[in-house]
């Protein structure tokens, strides 16, 4: 096992553990902060998949956008919301059982499928030339987004604006919907 693999599995483990902690944590604030860790480590995993730009974007959008949005939106405007969430009983309800059951079965199904399928034997993967470590992916992304994927790009930008306007509208105080 070389260093690359070692680091990969370390981050992978970090992702899974922190994610598990996020979902099992009762304290919302702590789980939100642990959420950072997960997102960071995921970004690290993207790097291992040779997607540097995606990793950076991940950090920028999630850490800089989503998380800040979450924290600030609630911490600043709705303190009582967080307080009311404190006393949640640690009960193991049927709901949890069903959830766990479903999750585990999905995990089982997915993992067994992944194990069964020989990805490297797939035709398109076999024939494709993979991205190599020295390739400039950012350049390629830029080229592709302006040419080949222009329409999705534009749709996305419009959608993004609609979402922002909608969110702002919804979050307005005082008026009823």
């Amino acid at each position, binding site marked *: 096992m070389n260093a690359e693999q070692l680091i990969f599995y370390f981050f992978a483990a970090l992702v899974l553990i922190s994610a598990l902690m996020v979902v099992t944590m009762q304290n919302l604030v702590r789980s939100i902060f642990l959420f950072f860790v997960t997102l960071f480590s995921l970004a690290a995993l993207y790097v291992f998949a040779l997607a540097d730009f995606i990793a950076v974007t991940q950090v920028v959008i999630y850490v800089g956008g989503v998380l800040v949005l979450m924290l600030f939106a609630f911490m600043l405007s709705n303190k009582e919301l967080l307080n009311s969430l404190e006393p949640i009983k640690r009960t193991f309800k049927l*709901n949890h059982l*069903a*959830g766990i059951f*479903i999750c585990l*079965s*999905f995990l089982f*199904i997915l993992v067994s499928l992944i194990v069964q399928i020989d990805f490297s034997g797939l035709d398109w993967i076999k024939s494709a030339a993979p991205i190599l470590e020295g390739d400039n992916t950012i350049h390629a992304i830029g080229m592709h987004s302006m040419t080949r994927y222009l329409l999705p790009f534009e749709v996305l930008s419009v959608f993004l604006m609609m979402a922002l306007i909608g969110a702002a509208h919804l979050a307005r105080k005082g008026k009823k919907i």
Partner: protein
Amino acid sequence: MEGLEFSGFVGIISLLVILLPLLSFLLILAGQKGRGADLALINISLTFILSVYLFSLLWNKQPFHYQIPWFLIGGIEFKAGILLNNLTVLMMILVSGISVLVHIYSRIYMKGDPNIHRYWAYLGLFCFSMLGLVISDNLLLIYLFWELVGFSSFLLIGFWFTRHAASQAAQKAFIMNRIGDIGFLLGIMIIFSQFQTLDISALFGDNGLMKESRISEGLWISGSRQIPEVWLSIAGIAFFMGAMAKSAQFPLHTWLPDAMEGPTSVSSLIHAATMVAAGVFLIARVYPVFDPFVLNIMVCIGAFTAFMAATIALTQNDIKRILAYSTISQLGFMVMALGIGAYSESIFHLATHAFFKCLLFLAAGSVIHQLHHYRDKLGLDFDCQDIRIMGGLRKGMPIAFIGMCLASAALIGLPLSSGYLSKDAILITAFEWAETRNGIFKILPYLLVLTSWLTAFYISRLVFKVFLAQPKLISREQTEQIKDAPNQMSYVLIILAFFCSFIAFSYNPASFESSWLWNGFSSASIQKVNIYHWLVPLILNIGSLGLLFTTYKIYVKSDGISIPDRNLLYRFSKREWYLNEIYSYLFTVPVEKFSRACYWFDRNFIDALVLKSASLVGVLSGITYWFDRTLVDGLVNATGTLAKWIGRFSRNFQTGKLQHYLITMLLVVLSFFILTYFI
């Protein structure tokens, strides 16, 4: 034609004889309360006169028989009728005569009783039923009157019904008699099933069915009917049982002493002179039915009863109880006489006994009556019937004393008395009869002799203690204040005293064979043994006189009871052989307990069984209902319920909770996956 008229005439008279007392009974009950005494006396006197007339017409003549149809049952016609023969007319005159005397006596004796009209009415009923019993020609009719006699005796014993002892005694008397009646009824059943008739003259007449019937090969055959021979004996025993109860023979005698709870006049009429003689009368009437076996039983029971009653009488202190046991004893003589076949002697004794025992009772009654008055006058408190407190009454009550002495003489059988004739006749015949027997029967006459001596003892004890001995509780001066009863009562005593002498029955004081009464009945054919005819009376009288003298010594001269007190024999006699206790222990209590047990059984077993089965049905129906509700009805409901359940189940999915919807959705996806990839 003349015969017809004659029979109609006699029939009407005899009907009148029995109906007149009934008339007085009905009239008094219907409201003639004030004139009860007169009515009763007039009626009974008329009855007596008519009886005397009938007696004069029919004594030693052809028996008179008159019948009318009574009812028809199946092919058999029952007839009611009148049968008058020597026995009947004698009994008639005896009953009505003594009744007249007792009626007269009772006018004074019962004076002042608030319910006196009932007394007269009951006496009327008694006379009616007794006379009816005497003249009936039919066993069913006899039975009818037989029980009516018991019924009127019940009423009279219980006359003072507010006294517990009296009502108890009445009940006892009736039930004891009922036991006998069952026997009588059984006898009737047997006779009827054998002969299909209950007519006495047809059954027991000279050429009656009884004589015609024969016994062969263990069967008793009459005409087309036959029955095992043993039933003949049973019939005899059954009839004898009836007689035993009425005539107070052992073991059915215990009611008679208790019956003394009734008024003394009643005791004298019913329980001494007439009713108790009905048993003897019945035996005499159905005499042909008894086979030798039953006759032997009769002899034994008669002799034993005579002896037993005499021993009990020795120690009693109640004046009436002594007389009651004396009666039982004398009845024992009569029954025994019938048993040995001394039919005429027995009837003879019945007649003489009726008079002298009546006299004894009435004299005792007047003593009690006078003592009662004396007690009430002075406000003292003592038992008027206890001979221990009496004494020295001779001075004040000479008539009662003389009457009592005469009657006692007759009872003992001293010469010149009527008892001498009849009782010695029985004893002589008994000895003659024993000649032809052996074993236990040999000693029976001696037992009777012993009994006679005992009789002498106890009756003289009574007389001496009451009239001659030193007064115990009251001083001699006071005793002399107790005078004889009022004249009416005394006259009665005098008349009766006359009948205690031999004159009324025979011109020859020494020989019973010269008595008109004895000759009136066909004599049994017993080998005559002359030696007994003088030896037996001699021995008897010597013994009796000796005893009289001893008693006089003991009770008058030595002024005290010198016989050993409270030894076993004494107590045995005093407590009347413990028979009441034995009966209570053997019959009354077990029957009562058994009846309780039966009732318990009825409640807790039969009824419970019914209830249990009812509740079982209840449980069953419950099960069925459950089955019906859950299964049959359930099937119908099940479809509905299923739909409902499905609805309710699927409604659960629409909880409105997003996560539930999601879970459901994912479950579906999951199952899709599983179906696709793993199955």
